[in-house]
């Protein structure tokens, strides 16, 4: 009997502790210490001022949302709205800066990529076995011929795509034709990549020649055939 009471008491204590922890947990999850709307808005403004990247601005915006939610829960909609009217102009201003930051970050990433790609290309070029000048010229000419052939194929695919687009409109957008268009677009993309790869190969060969031989590769252009026009003699 005594044992049963004890276990029941333990069960009640355990359950109470669980509920308390659960409540504390949900409270901790979005814990916001509210002071006054003015002071909280000032705090958000200071943080927005310190934010110097898009990610940091997002954190501030999330914080604003948490404060607004806390005001709504604790004091009702009117105070939350008042808080919002104080904070929104500050965040609008910060939002304008966001685009600036995003552009700056994109530019930095572009410069980093250019730096790494150039060093990678130079490394490849230094490692390349060039062979004789004739070998180099032959390789470039082979690549040029491949590029020309693939470009003709690409043009044909693009023309086919244009025709298919007209046919699709005429046929009332049937699914089978739309799928065919998708396949054609994938082929065009693959062909463009193939051409870009061969062009890249030529770039590396020329770079290798420049680095290893210390001069630019100059390929003599074939002399254009001159058409001789025979003027009709006017009597």
């Amino acid at each position, binding site marked *: 009997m005594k044992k049963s009471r004890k276990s029941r008491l333990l069960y009640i204590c355990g359950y109470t502790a669980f509920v308390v922890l659960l409540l504390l947990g949900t409270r901790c999850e979005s814990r916001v210490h509210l002071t006054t709307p003015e002071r909280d808005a000032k705090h958000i403004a200071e943080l927005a001022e310190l934010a110097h990247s898009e990610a940091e601005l997002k954190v501030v915006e999330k914080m604003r949302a948490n404060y607004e939610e806390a005001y709504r829960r604790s004091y009702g909609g009117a105070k939350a709205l008042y808080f919002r009217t104080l904070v929104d102009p500050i965040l609008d201003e910060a939002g304008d800066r966001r685009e600036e930051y995003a552009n700056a970050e994109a530019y930095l990433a572009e410069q980093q990529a250019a730096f790494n790609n150039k060093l990678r290309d130079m490394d490849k070029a*230094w490692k390349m076995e060039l062979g004789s000048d004739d070998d180099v010229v032959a390789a470039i000419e082979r690549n040029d011929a491949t590029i020309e052939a693939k470009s003709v194929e690409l043009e044909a695919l693009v023309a086919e795509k244009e025709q298919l687009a007209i046919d699709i409109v005429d046929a009332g957008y049937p699914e089978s034709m739309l799928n065919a268009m998708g396949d054609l677009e994938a082929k065009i993309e693959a062909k463009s990549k193939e051409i870009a790869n061969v062009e890249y190969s030529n770039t590396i060969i020329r770079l290798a020649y420049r680095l290893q031989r210390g001069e630019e590769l100059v390929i003599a252009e074939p002399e254009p055939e001159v058409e001789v026009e025979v003027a009709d003699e006017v009597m």
Partner: protein
Amino acid sequence: MKRVLIIIAVAVVSMACCNSGEGIVIDEQNHENIAYEKSYDLSERVVNATSYEEYKAAAAELREYEEAFRTQIGGDSYLIFLEESNAVLNEI
């Protein structure tokens, strides 16, 4: 014997301390000038290398400085370092 051990221990600790300070440290008072100077000098060395070994050494040093600027300084000076390096590297 004990003294010898102490001396060895001190030597080991001081060597470890010296090694931990190895690597490039960018002067925080003068980082912009260093960015201009080092990016130009090192990129020139990379571009003007006359052998693969020479290129590898110069490129490794350039990459080390790039990492040092990225991790220690960042901001405008890091961007200056990249822009100036790219300008020289793209001459080739």
